[in-house]
């Protein structure tokens, strides 16, 4: 007890997934060896979630609104000639189980749902932006302008494309990746009317759906038969650990699963699989 106070700090995640989330725990697995950085997911997100196109000037000021972004890093070793190509990273809200953004919101506009989502209540948000300040991944995007009305982000007839399943956000509120919550709700209510739980593969996010290489796997972690659940178990990544057992002894077996900035104890819900490069090549 004296050595590890942390177990007294958090009550969630408890380590017992079924206790935290009896029915659903939406999670992802992203295979960085499959991701080619083609940006299909980014466009899919724009189309599904009514993201405004901000234009050059605002992009210059860093006010872009992409909920998922493809990052491109270079390897510091062979910086002159990147023999091993580039490093791509699809980064979106990690839907942390102990999200740093949730605790700091003064009005409780961002909360944890029973499905383990990190919800953002648009009409409650007053725009203090504390959540984003506290987000280690910086994946929250703020409406610096009134895109629908004042900035004319959707000149006619582009508004006809907007997805009626979710709102168009207005000035002064925070938004972020929702794991396409509108799709999840549709699937859940459908399942509920049929008196069952959502089956694996029945619902997926726009990004996972579009990904040409199928690098993104989305599903319900609680469901023992879900693909994503199997991958997490296979990769021995435990949602409620901040250091995975396999990594304690330097991961000798070569299991690729890991989570970004895991040591910050936010318990992200997205597992990445390490990019692979052949050393013979």
């Amino acid at each position: 007890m004296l050595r590890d106070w942390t177990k007294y700090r958090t009550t969630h995640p408890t380590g017992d997934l079924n206790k935290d989330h009896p029915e659903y725990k939406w999670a992802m697995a992203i295979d960085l060896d499959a991701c080619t950085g083609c940006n299909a997911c980014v466009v899919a997100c724009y189309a599904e979630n009514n993201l405004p196109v901000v234009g050059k000037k605002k992009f210059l000021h860093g006010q872009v609104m992409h909920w998922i972004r493809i990052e491109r890093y270079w390897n510091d070793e062979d910086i002159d000639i990147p023999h091993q190509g580039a490093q791509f990273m699809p980064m979106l809200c990690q839907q942390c189980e102990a999200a740093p953004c949730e605790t700091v919101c003064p009005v409780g506009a961002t909360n944890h749902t029973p499905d383990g989502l990190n919800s953002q209540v648009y009409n409650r948000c007053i725009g203090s932006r504390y959540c984003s300040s506290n987000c280690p991944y910086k994946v929250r995007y703020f409406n610096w302008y009134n895109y629908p009305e004042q900035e004319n982000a959707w000149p006619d007839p582009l508004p006809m494309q907007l997805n009626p399943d979710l709102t168009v956000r207005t000035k002064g509120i925070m938004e972020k990746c929702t794991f396409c919550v509108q799709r999840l709700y549709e699937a859940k209510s459908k399942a509920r009317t049929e008196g069952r739980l959502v089956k694996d593969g029945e619902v997926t996010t726009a990004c996972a759906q579009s990904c040409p290489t199928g690098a993104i796997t989305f599903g319900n972690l609680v469901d023992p038969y879900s693909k994503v659940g199997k991958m997490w178990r296979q990769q021995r990544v435990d949602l409620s650990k901040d250091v995975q057992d396999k990594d304690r002894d330097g991961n000798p077996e070569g299991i690729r699963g890991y989570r970004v900035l895991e040591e910050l104890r936010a318990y992200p819900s997205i597992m990445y699989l390490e990019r692979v490069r052949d050393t013979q090549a």
Partner: protein
Amino acid sequence: MSTLRVLGLFNDFDAASDAIRELCSANLPTLNVDNITIKSPIEHPDVESLLGTRPAPTRRYTLIGAILGASLGFTFIASSQGNWFAQMKGGKPIIPFPPDFVLTYELMIMWGVYVTVLAFLVCAGLPARMKSSLYNSKISEDQIGVMVKAEKNCIDEVKKIFQRHNALKIEEEIVERRRRER
């Protein structure tokens, strides 16, 4: 036979305190020490001590206020957190102690201060109506007033004593029975 009130204005505290001492020692029949009031431009504990200890009970209310603030504050916060359990937060308990402690602390101080001020006004009898009693604007400047309330018969005696201690000015007024006396 009517009661009167006289106010004597003195140049400094020494004069005033001498006058008071003599008043007390003069054991006039209808003069009660509690009916002697000092009006001064600055607070002056020594002179006040001549009149014997008089109560200043504000602190008691302060304590009550602080306790109220703390207990009500915590109850309110905890209960509101409790009934909005949808507000599951980044792995924290629904009613987390550290933040609630901070808020309780603040509310304790808040109520402590408010009640103290309230108590002060009540105990000091403020706000008061000026007309109700003798006053002279010199008091707020540099002169010390000694006000005595007594039956008519010994008023003259009081005046004499005042003059003996070369009071600069002496005013008097009749106290109507009806009015609560101060």
